[in-house]
Structure formats: C-alpha cells, structure tokens
C-alpha cells in the first residue's frame, strides 16, 4: 500500500469517514447497468439458490430455487436467468457504428484495414463483490457445455434452450473482468474501494455493508460504529441485519430459516406426489405453493439489502466526474463485447475449458499492457493518483526556470532545447532516463541530462516540436511554466505477435489437439449428495 493511501486510511480512522482515493471516477458507469445479486447453496458447486436481477432499482426480478438439489428446479432458474439477462445483452448488439480494424490478409499476409461494426455501447453487469464475479465465472463454466435437446436429442438431462448461450456470455464477462481497467463486469466493493479509503483494512473492505458504512455512515454515527453494526448486528431471531453480499449466505440463515422452509417444501412436494384424488392434490398444491412462496420471501429478504447497497454504491460513484481516459478504456470494452457477439453469431463453439498455450500467452500480454495503460491513464487523469507516483519517484511536477535552445547534430538539425526544471519531488532520474509530459493530449518525450549544482534538473526535449528548425508554437514550455513529468510512458506498445495456435512450437507441446471437441460435463442420474 502506498504511503498516500495509508495516510488516507489513517485520516479515515480519525475522522470516522472514508477519505477520497481519487478525484475522478476511473471506471465507466453505464447509464443503465444491470445489477445481479446472486446467492449460492452452501457446500454445492455452482448450485444457485436465488438472485435479484434487473436494471431498475425499484423493481428487481427475484429468481429463486426452492430446492437447489433438484436439477429441474436449477435448470428452471437458469432458464429464467437467461430470459432476463440475454434480452439485456441483445439490446446492445444491433446498435452499431462503422469502424476499421487491422487484420492480416490470409492470402498476402499483409496488414490491411477492414470495415467492421462496433457496438455503439455495451451492456454492463454489476455484482456486489469479488466473489460475485467468481460466481459469474463459475455459472458461465457450469452452463456453456450443457447440451440442449435440440443440440443433442439423446442428452439424458437436456438444458433449457438458451442456457448454454448465457453460459458463454457469462464466461466472456468473467474473463473480461480479469483485464485491468475493464468495466463490462464490475464488483461494487472494487469500485468503491478504488475511490475511497476506509478506516479499516482491505480485508474488511470486502464486506459491502461495512464498506458503505464508512463511505456514507448514517446520520450521527461514525463509520467504525456503522461498519461494526453491518458486520455483526443481529435481530431477535439471530439473523444478520445486514446479510452477507453473497453469493455465500450466513450459516444462521441457512440453518434457522432456510432449512426448515425447504423441509416444508419437500414434504409438500412428496404429499402432492402421493395425493390420491383431486381434492387432496389441490390441498397439497396449495401447501406447496405456500412453501415455495415462503422460500421466495426469505430469499428476497436477504437479497434486498444487498441489492439496495449496490444501487447506493452506484449513486455514490456516479457523483464523481468521469476520468478523461475512461471513455478510451470503455471503447476497448465495446470491442470486446462486439467481438464476442460476432463469435456467437458466427456459430463458433463455446470457449474451451482451458486456454491453449498461445491464447494464454496472448491474454497475459494483453492484460499486462492494459495494466500499464491503466496506471498511466489514471495518473494522467487524476492529480491524487499522480501524487502517489510522485511520492514513489515515478513522476515529478516542477517549474521550468530556464530554456536554452539547442539542436541535434544531424544534417538537418532538429530542435533539442534544454530545459531547467526546479522541483521539490524526488524522481528516480539517471543517465538515459526518459521523462514524458502531456502536450495537447499526446506524450512529449525528454531525456535526463544532468543535475545542476542547486539540484535543478536539466532535461533535453526530444520530439513533437514540428519539422522545422525552430520548434512549433507552444511545443516548448516557457520559463515559469509548471509542468508534470512522468517517468513512465503514457501509451503502451503491444507485444510481439505470437505464433498461430497451430504453429505452437515443440517447447510448448506443439499444436493443441483439434480432434477432441469439448464434450459436455459428466452427469449422473442422482446429482444430489
């Protein structure tokens, strides 16, 4: 943790309120995000229990599984989830703008520009916390290899029609969430934690209720008191007043409320199956419906506080002005969405279980580039982030005290003015170290020359001064001007092109097998334990 954010946390302790870690919003926030608050069944792998989902804070849609160990009911839940999420995703698929993309011509091997579509906006999913992101990924993995009756008429347990498709989309969103600075799928705790420092630890910040309590404590209470209440306060029945943000539930909820309700439901179902005449069946059906309603009410009760918390978080973050580079990163998210839309439309198979060597290396390289870009852009967008880099010696702000014109020694001399810069910062400068400043939004490069005896820094400006012998108007800072320099580059070059997967070298196992298509997961008649 940098000293500046440590200081912010200490100030939060003292003041009893979270302190800002950013002066602008560093993540894109859709005007119409879809909030997804899922719950899972304790001990089960990817067995959803319920969810609140929707784009309207006032009318979330409740999805519930009355008995998670029943495959049919789980499938029904997933089908309903698909019917909720897919229309939202589809709603962004056809509003496109023309764009160009560089592609390699398969015949000539040359890089050519291709006219393609780019979705004008992309759907954004927001979950309460990081485990929620993991759960999206897990749901995606559990669904994308399922076979529908149409795909495989022999499948003993066919999945509802649109479930595998939703699995592919959730997988894509889950994977995209691993790209630094991406905003297709966000966890509210990450979003808040990026912008505010609380008076508690990072570990405690994982609790959405406690985190919000620090940022916006109720009238008259300190953040610490409110956070403690969010963590531990229970009602007379022993239930948490602020239930966990999921997907895991509180054991006390499972044991005291949910288990008995499920037992009632199971019994009603058995009785209904055993009913011998219409009247008895009607009676049992009524009992079953009421048991199901009870479970739904219980789930709604523990989901609703988290749902509201996520929307409170959205309101808080929306108040911050958007950082200038956020739109650029969102454009990349739009490309990501468009690309997956195209793959689905082209009938490509679902994402494989594990990446091949080339895909893994490509993803890692892309994420490292994204990370470097995010760090640079956040520092350029936000003086508070820049302050952290200044403290770390990776940037400095100084006043230009002198400008001496000089030229390069080539046949056509180009301007290479020497700037003397006075700063109180302590950048890690040395021979050959480059410094960059933003000139009309583009990086201008200088190199470190020497320290003057009084500690001032002499830099030689290297580019963006036009083609003439004399520098273009405004391209050289003037004496008296205050300039922010960074020792990191503002834009990132992509890495080298990797081989095609079919050209994977012997050191990495050779080309991946293509004969074994990904098969569906094994299923057993009894899938409950």
């Amino acid at each position, binding site marked *: *943790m940098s000293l500046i954010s440590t200081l912010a946390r200490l100030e939060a302790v003292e003041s009893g309120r979270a302190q800002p870690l950013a002066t602008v919003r560093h993540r894109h926030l859709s005007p119409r995000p879809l909030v997804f608050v899922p719950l899972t069944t304790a*001990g089960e792998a990817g067995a959803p229990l319920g969810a609140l989902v929707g784009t309207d804070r006032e009318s979330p849609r409740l999805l519930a599984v009355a008995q998670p160990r029943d495959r049919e009911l789980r499938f029904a839940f997933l089908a309903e989830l698909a019917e909720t999420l897919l229309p939202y995703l589809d709603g962004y698929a056809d509003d496109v703008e023309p764009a160009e993309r560089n592609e390699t011509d398969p015949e000539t091997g040359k890089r050519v520009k291709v006219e393609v579509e780019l979705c004008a906006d992309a759907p954004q999913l927001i979950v309460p916390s990081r485990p929620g992101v993991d759960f999206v990924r897990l749901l995606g993995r559990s669904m994308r290899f399922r076979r529908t009756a149409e795909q495989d008429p022999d499948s003993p347990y066919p999945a509802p029609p649109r479930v595998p498709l939703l699995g592919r989309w959730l997988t894509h969103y889950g994977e995209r969430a691993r790209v630094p600075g991406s905003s297709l799928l966000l966890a509210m705790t990450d979003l808040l934690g990026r912008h505010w420092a609380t008076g508690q630890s990072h570990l405690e910040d994982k609790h959405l209720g406690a985190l919000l309590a620090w940022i916006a404590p109720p009238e008259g209470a300190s953040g610490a008191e409110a956070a403690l209440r969010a963590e531990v306060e229970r009602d007379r029945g022993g239930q948490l007043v602020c239930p966990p943000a999921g997907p895991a539930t509180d054991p006390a909820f*499972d044991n005291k409320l949910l288990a008995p309700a499920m037992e009632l439901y199971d019994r009603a179902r058995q009785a209904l199956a055993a009913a011998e005449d219409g009247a008895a069946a009607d009676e049992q059906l009524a009992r079953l419906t009421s048991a199901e309603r009870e479970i739904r009410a219980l789930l709604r009760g523990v989901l609703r506080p988290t749902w509201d918390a996520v929307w409170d978080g959205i309101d808080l973050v929306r108040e911050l002005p958007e950082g200038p580079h956020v739109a650029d990163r969102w454009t990349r998210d739009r490309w990501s969405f468009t690309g997956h839309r195209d793959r689905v439309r082209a009938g490509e198979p679902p994402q494989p279980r594990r990446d091949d060597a080339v895909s893994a290396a490509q993803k890692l390289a892309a994420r490292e580039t994204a990370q470097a870009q995010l760090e640079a852009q956040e520092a*350029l967008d936000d003086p508070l982030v820049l*302050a952290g880099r200044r403290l770390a010696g990776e940037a400095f702000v100084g006043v230009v005290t002198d400008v001496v014109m000089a030229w390069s020694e080539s046949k056509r001399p180009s301007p290479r003015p020497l700037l003397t810069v006075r700063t109180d910062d302590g950048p890690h400068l040395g021979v050959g170290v480059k410094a960059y400043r933003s000139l009309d939004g583009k990086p201008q490069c200088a190199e470190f020359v020497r320290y003057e005896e009084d500690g001032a820094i002499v830099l030689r400006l290297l580019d963006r001064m036009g083609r003439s012998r004399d520098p273009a108007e405004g391209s050289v800072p003037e004496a008296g001007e205050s300039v922010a320099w960074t020792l990191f580059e503002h*834009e990132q070059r992509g890495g080298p092109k990797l081989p095609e997967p079919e050209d994977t070298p012997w050191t990495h196992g050779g080309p991946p097998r293509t004969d074994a298509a990904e098969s569906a997961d*094994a299923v057993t008649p009894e899938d409950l334990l």
Partner: protein
Amino acid sequence: MSTSLDSGPLPQAPATALRQRLAELRGPSAAPHPLDARALAALAANPGCKRRALLDGAGVDKAALARALGSPATFGQSQFAFMRGNAFEARVKADGGTELLRLLGVADPHGAVVPDLTAAGPEGRAARTALALREATGAGAWTLLDHPMLALEVAGSPAYLEPDAVVVHPDGRWTVVEIKSFPMVDGSADASKVGAAARQAAVYVLALERVAALTKDASVDHSVLLVCPKDFSNLPTASAVDVRKQLSVTRRQLARLTRVEEIASALPDGVCFDVESCSSGELASAVESVPSTYAPECLSACELAFHCRERARTAGAVESLGRAVRGELGGLTGVAEVLSAARGEWGDPADPTVAALRRAARLRAEALGAGALGTQAPGTAAREDAVAGRGTA
C-alpha cells in the same frame, strides 16, 4: 532445524508441571478444549500471537471466552455444507473404498483390506490405529484405514487427530487422504481452500510420522491425496498435493508451542480464563495480560479476533488497518502519532519516515486541492488512442 518434535517425547516432569499450570489457567472445572488438526494448522496464521498460543496451548474454549467478553465469533457452518460434506465422503468411501483406492491408482481395489478400528475412547482408538498400521505394513497389501485416530503431543498434552483416511501401500508407504467437498473444476480448485487442506493434512502426516518411526519398514508419503467432487458433479476426482512445505511450517509452529511455558510464567498471579467462574471484567483483564499481535487476517482464523480488533482500534494501533500498513511507517505504531507526524506537529524531520509522511501529506493535500491537473489535456489522448479501433465514427 525445528526437529524437536521428531526426537521423541518431551521429558516427563516439566510437561506435567506445565500441564498443571495450564489447567489452572483454564479453570478447575473446565475440560480442555480439544485441539484438532484444523486448529493446529491455524496456528500458522499468526504465529507471533502469544495470546493465541497460550489459550490454545491451555485448551481454553476461545469461542466461549469471546462470547463472555461480548465479542462473539461469527464462525458457523451451514447444515447444507455439512450434509454435503458428509454425503460426499460417504460416497467416496462406499463399497469398501474401491472408488478411493482407484483414485490412488490401485488396480484391484476390491482386494484391499479395511480393518475395523473401533475402540473405546480416543486413546484406545489411537492404540488400535497404531496396531492396524503395523499389521497393514507387515501384510504387504493395500489397506484402507477409515477414520483412524492419531495422537500428537501439543504443549505437553496429547491432541487426538482424525484424518478422513490413511491408505497403506503394499510397499509400506502410508498416504494421508483428505476428502473435501469444494469442487475441482477443470483440474483446478480454490487455492486458499487447497492451502488450508494441505496445512491440515500436514498435521496428520506429522502425527503419522511419530507412529511410522516405531514401525518397521514404514514411511509416510509427503504427498497427500486430496479428493474433491469433479466439476459440477458428485463424482470424485483426486490430486496429489505435496505438503513438504506445510510439514516444516507445522513442525515449526508446534515447536513454538512449547514456549507456552514462558508465556504462562510471565503472567501475573491469579490470571484465569474460566468463563464459568470469572466475570467478564476479570476475563477481559486476564486476556489483556497476555500480549497479542492482532492483524485483520485473524478475523477469519481466530474466535477472539473481534475482541482483539476492538482493543487494537481503541489503542489506535495502525495494525488494525492491515499488516502491510506498517511496512512504510518504521517505528511509528499509533494512528495519532502518524497523523501528527504527517502534519508536522510532532516528530523529527530528519527521520525518513517522518519526512516521507510529510511529503505524502503535502502531495495529498495539494492534489485534493488542485482538482484537475492544469497541464494535461487528456481528453484528446483518449480519442487518439482509440483510433486504431474506432474508425471514422
């Protein structure tokens, strides 16, 4: 380097004296809270905490103590998870453990021996297990020990440990089997859960090594077999987990527990942790008399954590914000101290910590006052940067 646990039982007399002292601390009527493998493995979570070492060493029921102090722990287990765990273990071990042995690579699992390990009391069961291990090792056949009982001396008292299973190979090798109900999806599993399982299994390996040392031709595998549900099914799958690192960590931590004696002797007279006979005020001052090293990680590893957090916060200790916070604060340990140093109200400006804090505070204040950086015009950079993908729109 920390092999003391392997070098035979501790001398008898001091152990008895220590046991006596710990019993006093626990309270005359309280039975020692048994330490299981999970609790022993959890010692590694905060080895510097004397409070935890003493309370665990003395067998104090920390959950009851925390309740009595008014800061109950929030740990609990859902009955759904509990049921599923049991059901999965039963499935793995069904049919004489054939499925389990197949996962170990046994060609003919039906020929394996599954001895009856029932006996009276933990001591009896541990003796019965040791006998079964000896017999199985001599027999040269695959043998599955279902829920054997192992004893390990911890701070002078025996702790009884019950692994899910131990398999004896025909060549005399013993393998610990750990059955967990979290899934292995596409060959990988939650790394923190696997880590916890590995630490727990290492305790069993350590206990088994004590028995193996007394058994001819026996050796204990330093890889354990972790059995989990495969993907989203109820079918078991398994992975060998190398626990050599966890084993040396456990050895270290158990060797440290002998320091409990030192901690106990440093306590003032009359200190007692008996929740039955002491008031909450007495308990609080008893707890306070043992130094602790609270860190937020304790919240998921120790029943007393909420109490210790409360104390740490009241004392204004910077650790309550996380272990990493101290890294750059040098000798400064108090919130108020750090803030006043940062504001220039206190501290020696020649001290690099103080100097860095003041610089940090100045830069932070400047940035918060500045609003936006005047020298930047980044909006255009965003446009420019995106040209590759944006086209003419």
